[in-house]
Structure formats: C-alpha cells, structure tokens
C-alpha cells in the first residue's frame, strides 16, 4: 500500500508555498551550489517542510541499500533529473525508493548498484576526498560529465551506439573517459531508473503535461493544437 508509494503526493506539491519553497531549495542545492546558501527566511520554512518530507518518506522502509548507498542514490536522483521550473527532482519523484524496491527483488540489479555506488564513492573520494553524496557539487557534476563523455565515446556496454556520430554532439568536456568507463553500466541503469521513476510519478506526469487517462463524452482535438502544428509544418490541411 502506501509504503510502496515512494513519491510525494500531487496534493502536497500543489500547495504553492510548499512547491515554491521546495523549488528554491532544490535549485539552491543543485544549480547554484551549496556555497550560495539558502535564504534564512526560507530556512525556517524549509526546516518544517523537510520534517514533513521526512515523515512522508519515512513511510517507506529502505529494503536493500545501506544508508551510504541510499544517500548516494538520493543525490544522483537530484542531479540526473534536477528540480527546475517544470517540477521537482527525481528524488521527489520517488526514484531512490523505486530503485531500492527493485534491487530488493532482483539480485542482478542489486549487484549493479552495489558495485556501481562503491565505484562512484571511490571515484568521488579520489577527486575531493569525500564520498559522492558529500562531495562538492562541482566534483559530483564533473564525475557525471565524465560518465556521459565516456558513454558517448564507448557506449554503455548494453546499448549499441553509433559512437562516432554521437561523440560529435557531446557538450561535455571529455575528461578521463577511460576511467569513467568502469562506471558506465551502473550509470546507464541508474539514469534509466531515475528517469523512469520521475516521469511515471505524479510530479513527472505534471511536468510533461500528460492530460490523458481520463474520460470524455465526446473526443475533441483543440483547434489551437492543430493550428500550432500546421503553422510549423510544410504540409497544409485540405
């Protein structure tokens, strides 16, 4: 039942003050960096929000990961699908809980994440002396940049890539791609599950603007949408 629902309920996030605060906090954490800090006025409210957040997420008992691993997953979820104007991060979409649930039921997946997070923490420590969740944001993103660069150079080991073609599109500096290659399989799985958790959660569905799974007496297609598409297309409606 509720212990399986690892996301923040839509209702909670639709309360504007809470949503706005969460957004600002999340932006402070992910985009500008921790050094920029959080507005003290927000701080008090954030504290209360984080408390209630804890209460909600406390409903989920972590089944497989230890505390260090789970914190790494939470941070990864915030970085891979960060909070932005469209919605909160994948952490709020329940990604860490989703991954934990599947790992608790699937040895193969659990092994990918156990080894992957050990690799991630070691790689972060090699950079700045701290494990991934506690590392400076610049070290965290540098690691993810290296993973993406390695993926574009080598493929993720499971997906066949036109590597040459995609390498051209890389906007990330290729630093140490060979080292990062060892983390690719893990990264591929982590991103896949984080992205899926976010976009299947109520906050992700809202972000996309999916308005289906509904019920109508008549089916209508808005004129506005038709005109928008034909206005941008080489074809015309008869």
């Amino acid at each position, binding site marked *: 039942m509720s212990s399986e629902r690892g996301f923040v309920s839509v209702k909670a996030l639709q309360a504007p003050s809470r949503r706005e605060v969460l957004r600002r906090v999340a932006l402070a954490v992910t985009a500008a960096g921790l050094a920029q800090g959080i507005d003290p006025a927000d701080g008090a409210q954030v504290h209360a929000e984080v408390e209630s957040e804890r209460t909600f997420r406390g409903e989920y008992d972590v089944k497989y990961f230890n505390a260090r691993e789970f914190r790494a997953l939470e941070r990864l979820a915030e970085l891979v699908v960060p909070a932005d104007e469209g919605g909160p991060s994948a952490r709020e979409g329940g990604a860490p809980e989703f991954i934990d649930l599947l790992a608790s039921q*699937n040895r193969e997946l659990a092994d990918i994440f156990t080894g992957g997070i050990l690799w991630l923490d070691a790689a972060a420590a090699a950079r700045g002396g701290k494990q991934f969740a506690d590392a400076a944001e610049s070290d965290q993103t540098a690691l993810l940049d290296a993973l993406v660069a390695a993926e574009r150079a080598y493929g993720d080991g499971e997906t066949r890539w036109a590597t040459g073609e995609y390498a051209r599109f890389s906007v990330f500096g290729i630093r140490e791609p060979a080292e990062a290659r060892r983390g690719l399989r893990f990264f591929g799985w982590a991103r896949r599950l984080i*992205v899926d958790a976010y976009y299947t959660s109520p906050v992700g569905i809202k972000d996309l603007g999916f308005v289906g799974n509904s019920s109508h007496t008549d089916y209508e297609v808005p004129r506005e949408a038709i005109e928008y598409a034909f206005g941008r297309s080489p074809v015309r409606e008869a």
Partner: protein
Amino acid sequence: MAEKDYDVIVVGAGAGGGTMARVLGERGAKVALLEAGPMIDPRNDFKTHKWPHDYGHRGAEDGGRAYFGRGTAYGFFTTVSGGWQLEGEPYTSAPGTRFEWFRSRVVGGRTNHYGRMSFRFSEMDFKPYSRDGIGRDWPISYEDIAPWYDRAEEYIGVTGTVEGIPSAPDGKFHDPPAPKVHERLIRAAGRKLGVPFIANRRAVITRSINGRAACHYCGQCGRGCLTASNYSASQIDVFPAVETGNVTVITDSMARAVEVGDGGLARGVIYVDKAARSERRVRGRAVVLAASACETARLMLNSKSKHFPDGIANGSGLVGRYLMDTVGFSLGGTLPALENLPRYDTDGFGGAHLYAPWWLWDGHSKLDFPRGYHIEMGGGFGMPGPGSFGALAREAGYGRELKRRAREAYGTLVGLSGRGEMIPNNQSYMDIDPEVVDRWGIPVPRFHFSFSDYEWKQARHMERTFRDLIEAAGGKVLGIGNTAREGEGIAVPGSIIHEVGTARMGDSPAASVLNKYCQAHEVRNLFVADGASFVSNPDKNPTLTINALSWRTAEYLAEELRKGNV
C-alpha cells in the same frame, strides 16, 4: 465427474468459439465450450485507468523484470492474455526457420488485448487467383459473406466512414472520433503523395448498444474495457452465451484429440483437466474447433484413429499446410512541428483514428509485388511508462537539459506500420514434432516458415512509402537496421499474430480440408471456426472475418442439427 452429452462441443473461447457458442446458444443448442485457460473477471483482471505510480514497480514488474526482457507480453498493464512462450507448453521450429507463436489461454483468448482493427475482406480478396494467377480463390465470394459481416458489425460495433473504396468494403459503422494532430499531419503528407488516410475501422462503440456504454476515450483498450465499449470475445460473446442458459464453459481444460466413433464421425473431445491432471471426455452431436489456427491443426493432426491414420479429416494431407502470417514492417520518425505542442488528450479510442487502406489495388502491373497492405499509425502524448524516455535521456546526458528536451520532444514521435498480404507457399506449414510433448503429454507443433520475394518486396515498398510520408510531413526518419534481416526488414514470422491457414476451405476434398461452410469434407459433424479455414490472408486483420465466418457456420450448423443431418 459424470460425462454429459451436449449438442455441440466447441473447443476454444476466442473470437471464433465465442461467436459460435453464443449464436448456437441463442438458437437453443446445448453447447459445451472448452477453454484451455481460466475464466476472466474484468473487475479483478483489468487494469483500466491505473497509473504506473499505483504500483511500486511503476509497471516494470517485480524486480524490474520488464527491463531484462522478461516482462508480460505487451507490458504490465495489458489485460491477462498469454505470451510468446508458455511454461511447460513448448513448440519447435525446423532448423533454419523461425516462427513465433502467441497463445492466450483464457476465456476470450487474444481478443482481450488485440488491436481491434476490423476490416472487411473485399471481392478481390476472396478471388485473388482469378485476378493475378497466384495463390488460390476462396470457395465463397464477398456476396456470400456480406450478410454475416453486417450481423457481426451490428452486434460487435465497428467505427468507420462510408468511402466506396473497392479494396475496403464499407460496413455498418459507428461514428469515428476526430483525428489527432499528428494523424492530420500524416494525412496531409499522404494527400501530397497520393496515399489516402480515412477514419479507422475499429471494434469500438461510440454510441451505446446492447446495454454497453459508448467509448469514454481513455485509450486503454489493450488493458480490457471495464465498460465493455470494445469487442472482446469474453465480454461480448462468452458472457452473453452463458446467459442463454444453454452454454456450459469448461475452463482450464486442454483438448488433446477429437474422439472418432465407429462410423468415422466425431463423437466428442478428449481433454486434460489441468487442475485434476486427469483425462476426461465430453461428447456431442457435433464438434467445432476454434482453438486458433495452429492449435486447431495440432488437434486435428493429433486425432489419429483407424479411420484417420494421419489425423482427423486429413485425407488431403493439407492439415497444417499453407500457414500464413501478415507481412509487417514499421518505421518511426520525429515531427519537429509537434515540438512543444499545446497539450491535449491524445488517448482517444485506443488505436489510431486514421488508417490508409491499400490504395494501389489497381496498380499492381507497375509494382514488383502482387498484393497490398494497409498502413497503421501511432503517436501522441502517451501515458509515460518505464522506458518512455530512455533514448532521449541517453542523448541528453543528464540534468536540466534532459528535462527541457523531454518536455520539448514529448509527443513528437510517430510510427507507421504496414500490414500486408502474404502469399501462401509450400515452405510455410506446421506438422507435429516427432519427439516433443508438452506438460500434458500432448505432442507439440513444429513450424516451418519462409517468406518469398513477394513479401520482401512488399516490405521494401512499405519502407519507401513510410519514409516519404514522414519526410513530407517535415519529419526525420529514425534509424533503421538491416532491411535484409528478418526482424528488421520484415517482421519475424508469427509476430504479427495473424496466423491463419492450416485447414483451408475449398470445393475439392483433394485440395482442401473444409467445404464452404467450414465443415470438414470427410467428417460431416466436424467444423472449424477460427482462422485455420482461411484460403488467403489479405491485408485485413483477420478477427472480423473469423467472427463473420463463425456466425455463418453456426447458423448452418444449427439448421443441420434441426434437420437431423448431424
């Protein structure tokens, strides 16, 4: 358990068997309907209106097994149906050939989840040999079957518009829903290229009939419909059949053989009661096989007796022969015109609201393949599920750019699928594997399959047409693989799940298994009511024709029973 006698034993509770049992039951015949799987309970079995986040695994199933290719066929949300492999019930393929066999062991069979495309065969479909000298004519014409198409459509409910296209006869239609934005773009591209897109013909009702509510446009037909606004043999045939009081459904019972009496007539069916792991018999005045083309042929070939050493009604040696699937090829693309499209509900009535019937039916002299195909379409703002943004995420890397791209690209993908006619050939058939039996001790089918140049060239025509359509709409075709390889350049045989043939109809007992009423030439109280009777496999999805043929056979059989002829 006491054996009980019935008028008719029907094997299989799908489109053919469901129609047969209902029509016979309505006419007062006592029917036993054997089904290899369980009864279906829509209230508990259907996942209508559920969200991925209603489940901890979000639709990826326990342990995320869908990610590892071990998930439910067609996804977690699809109604209980079946799969490509069933535990304990193998099938084999001859070396060097491949055939995928989808089986549903449940009341309603594959109609619980199917695409519901409902197209009438045309006169040219029934007389292909007369037109081009390839394949074989059916023993019936369009005029023979048209009244039963009318009956089936009026009862089932099929959408569409009257168009007067010779290759796609009009029917008794419910009003179709308005086309979606991406469908309008493709339709406009089709106008440029001479490919006509018209309202889709699907077994969905848009006005209330027979106590069934009109479609409410949630787009989830494949999950099973709690309001029975679409056709499934379970809800629309089997449940009403049971309500007649004349039809007894015997579930979880796997037919092994048709029992033959001293006079060479069918006496009943020998089956395995799965729960009891015991063999049982059920007897009747007539037997109707509707277990799906390959199960029906398997059952016939396994029904050996002194009268029929090569299998019941198989004096011609044609049982299992001329197995056909549909020619399939799909191509996807992105339409940049749809980026950041104002959001609206694209669920609609399930499948696409438009399709293109075969438009070059009088132009084959200029083509390098003899028969046609129709075009199906996909796209829109689908409900996000596991994997929906996998490719996009890899391309975008991570972070804010990933989210921006997801919003921008959501709903820009379109897919076009061709569904074409395969010509029956000598290399494509099934027989019984000499060594392998299933967990019920029943010998299993062995498949032999080969597409010819006819099918491969048709698939290349699909590829060029789909590329042209996507590009004319301003889109970019997504990469395609090796078009000379099965599974890339043409759908793997069997994978379209339109397998038909194996016990074809005809006027000559030497060259066919069944007569024009789908009655075995050699056994007058044995009938077939599934796709096994098909002489050809036009580009029209087979279910509606199975419904119509079964209805016609049921009325014929009811009359023969009344006259005492069977």
